[in-house]
């Protein structure tokens, strides 16, 4: 029997939301601004926070109990993602563990891999980096060249990955590489779960305007990776990676931070707004609600045990464009306050508004550029042949 139409979270999920907010208020420092703020405390705060979440059974509660979860609904997980992302994602890189690395291992992994990785991910004591982009393979990911040459008992990996967020903090890398010499494009690729402490692997941070840990490059110099690291069938890595990405695309509840920042702007300036600002604010609320619904729609698809298709890309586009429109609005109504970061005493809300403003342009670039997401919409939603 089909489920009834419903646009609200269940009562117990809203109860969990209140519990979680109380927990965050008690656990996080008052000036918490995320893991990428300068200083070493942020990492300790994040690690401790994840461990406490795990102890409460909240970190991976939507996973199957067999893998350290509680078989909670995807909606319970959505509440977690919304509240954490809205509050500068205290999990740091571990949001990836929950959103797509763990599910990908559960989906494609061997029993040994599941037993090795999933309990540790659920305990909140592992950090991962994504090894996809290369200097000559960004949006055109299928052009990647990082080679994993089969050898006795494993692979010899040589190549370079770049733009790896939190790579300098990572214990493991979800590596997409070419295991078949001479193969082209999407053929001959595989995913390896690589221990970054292995010899022949080095990580170099890249300085950007976004603060530490955000961007790194990983260099593999004839690093030996055991065959047990192979995730899914050898040579089928493109499908493995794309399925993993489909899990991830609406995983980050960026829309929740947008709603929160709109609320902050309303608190700070709303009573002074003229007609035009009022109108633009309400238009953003409309777009924001649509973005939420697009994301919830993807979750509903996941809840039916289906892999989201173009709707996931569409949801991600909504999230990214919403942030950018709010950033524009912020400049209009907050003036100089919009660009004062958390390190500035005059910054409102500990620089939270500036953080959205600063990061907004990245939404249409990272984790699949705007054009790539649109090409998926065109291919799967309109049935057109993709052209680039």
């Amino acid at each position, binding site marked *: 029997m*089909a489920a009834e139409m419903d646009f609200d979270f269940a009562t117990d999920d809203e109860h969990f939301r209140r519990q979680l907010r109380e927990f965050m208020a008690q656990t996080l420092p008052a000036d918490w601004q995320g893991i990428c703020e300068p200083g070493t405390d942020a990492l300790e705060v994040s690690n401790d926070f994840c461990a406490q979440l795990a102890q409460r059974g909240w970190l991976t509660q939507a996973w199957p109990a067999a893998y350290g979860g509680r078989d909670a609904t995807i909606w319970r997980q959505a509440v977690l993602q919304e509240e954490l992302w809205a509050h500068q994602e205290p999990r740091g890189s571990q949001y990836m563990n929950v959103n797509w690395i763990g599910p990908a291992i559960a989906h494609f992994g061997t029993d040994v891999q599941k037993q090795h990785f999933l309990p540790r991910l659920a305990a909140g004591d592992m950090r991962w980096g994504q090894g996809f982009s290369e200097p000559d393979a960004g949006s055109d990911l299928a052009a990647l060249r990082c080679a994993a040459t089969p050898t006795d008992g494993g692979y010899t990996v040589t190549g370079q990955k770049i733009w790896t967020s939190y790579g300098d903090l990572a214990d493991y890398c979800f590596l997409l590489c070419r295991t078949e010499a001479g193969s082209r494009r999407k053929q001959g690729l595989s995913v390896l779960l690589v221990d970054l402490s292995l010899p022949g692997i080095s990580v170099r941070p890249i300085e950007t305007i976004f603060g530490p840990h955000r961007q790194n490059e990983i260099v593999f110099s004839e690093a030996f990776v055991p065959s047990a690291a192979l995730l899914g069938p050898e040579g089928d890595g493109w499908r493995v990676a794309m399925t993993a990405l489909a899990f991830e695309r609406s995983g980050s509840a960026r829309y929740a931070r947008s709603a929160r920042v709109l609320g902050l702007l309303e608190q700070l300036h*709303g009573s002074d707004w003229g007609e035009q600002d009022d109108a633009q*604010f309400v238009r953003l609320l409309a777009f924001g*609600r649509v973005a939420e619904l697009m994301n919830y729609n993807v979750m509903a698809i996941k809840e039916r045990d289906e892999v989201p298709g173009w709707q996931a890309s569409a949801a991600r586009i909504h999230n990214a464009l919403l942030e950018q429109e709010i950033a524009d609005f912020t400049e209009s109504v907050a003036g100089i306050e919009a660009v004062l970061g958390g390190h500035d005493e005059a910054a409102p809300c500990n620089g939270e508004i500036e953080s959205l403003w600063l990061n907004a342009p990245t939404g249409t670039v990272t984790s699949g550029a705007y054009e790539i997401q649109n*090409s998926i919409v065109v291919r799967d939603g309109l049935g057109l042949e993709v052209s680039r």
Partner: protein
Amino acid sequence: MNFDLTPEIASMCEVVQRAAADSRDLGADEQWRRLSELGVFDLRGDNSPLPGAVEVGVVSVLDHLGQATMRGPFAESIWAGSDVLASAGGLVTMASTVVVGGETFVPYLQRQPRLLHAAGADPACWTVQHDPATRGADVPVERGQHAWAAAGGARPLAELEPAYAWRAAAATSAGLMSAVLDRTVEHARVRTQFGRTLASFQAVQNRLAECLWRVEGLRLIVREAAWRADRGQQLAEPVSALAWIYARRVSHLVARHSHQVLGAIGFTDEFGVTQLTGAAAVQRSVLPEKPAIKAVRAARAVRAGDPASSVLGGFVA
């Protein structure tokens, strides 16, 4: 959460859309008669074919009528209901004769909606005027009133309950823009320039993709507004307002993208897109944005402390 239509509503929408398509060549009178037989104008009545999901049914049907490229005062007619239509002496059709109030308009005015608008014409009537089916017919037009409206039963969209008008207009926009997108995609598939189809250019694909995800998002918020209205929730009004505010943006944007992709052919009468974008433009002019914005602002609850992490969390509970 679950945003899917119930099988009953989905089934009715499918039947309505098929009836509209099948009767396209039979004229507007026959189209409206068939819709009436299917219970479209009873949706909000005591004998609604979709009890318990009246408003979701209404917006879904309006959306599908738009997809079937049907234009006309459907939202007004559904609000008025079958009884009122019957008391008006017959069904209102897109080609229905309108009472003449001592003044006769020459037929070309039917192709000049702006002139009708300037004359203070009834918005419901306005949507009738640009239909190729009535082109050339000597249909008299009275300043602003359909026969059935003159009978005292039905009112134009702008005079209906605002929340109903907002979500009904938004639903109609979703359907119309969906039809515009379908026609634009079809043209882009076959039209060749520089040795390639238009659809093979990434710049064109980006426009088409945006149309699809905008309409999809619009459809969700319209459905939500109706779902909350069916439950008598206080949030139904601001969400309906948000739906209309977003619909205005979407219909503007889809029309712009469509015309850019279609080029000159898109402006011709025979291609048939301007009639659809025109109908959406009519709705935008008769239902201005400002009252919807005011309704949303009035419903906000600005509290001190940690703001909500969701849009609706910022409204009065």
